[in-house]
């Protein structure tokens, strides 16, 4: 399952809801990319999840928020083409709105 998160972890619990499912891949988009900021309060959650989840973040949204140069280690940065590839690679996807 590909979990698509577009909510800041400091706003709504979408990231935690996805993490509670146990395993899979997480793609952070829109305000969801704030979870990928190195030094943020969500960094520990992202790092702890990396054993069970592969974590990705959308480049354009990182850049729009000025955090593309400080992404938490282990988070893979993808462009929109990479977003499409992730959806294609995973049989199911869930947008946590």
């Amino acid at each position: 399952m590909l979990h698509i998160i577009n909510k800041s972890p400091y706003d709504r619990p979408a990231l935690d809801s996805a993490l509670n499912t146990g395993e899979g891949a997480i793609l952070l988009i829109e305000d969801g990319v704030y979870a990928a900021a190195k030094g943020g309060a969500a960094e520990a959650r992202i790092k702890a999840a990396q054993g069970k989840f592969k974590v990705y973040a959308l480049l354009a949204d990182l850049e729009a928020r000025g955090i593309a140069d400080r992404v938490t280690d282990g988070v893979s940065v993808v462009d929109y083409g990479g977003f499409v590839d992730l959806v294609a690679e995973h049989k199911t996807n869930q947008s946590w709105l």
Partner: protein
Amino acid sequence: MKFAILVNEGPYTHQASDTAFQFAKAVLAKGHEIFRVFFYHDGVNNATRLTTPPQDDRNIVNRWSKLAEEHNLDMVVCVAAAQRRGIVDEGEMKRNGKDATNLAPGFRISGLGQLIEAGIQADRLVVFGD
């Protein structure tokens, strides 16, 4: 691979419509097919041709229309959501006794069955909303 896209948010209020558009473009650039783009809830506001954003801003509605024309996309607006929000085509104008239409080129008004069909026919359905 066949993709279907569901847009649940209006333009200029939330990033969802922008992300859906960029995603749709990337799907086509990758050589995949878009079976349908379905606009639901406030997403139907993406289909009014009367929007006039400032000249230095993106025109979200025209951008969808252009993409549909270039790639022969099927862009469907939910009829019940459209009626509530005043998105009107020729048929709806006559049926509901209205005096104007505002559906942008490339969009068509139809029912929720079109979303269900997209979910069945497409290999992937991706939802964009708030």
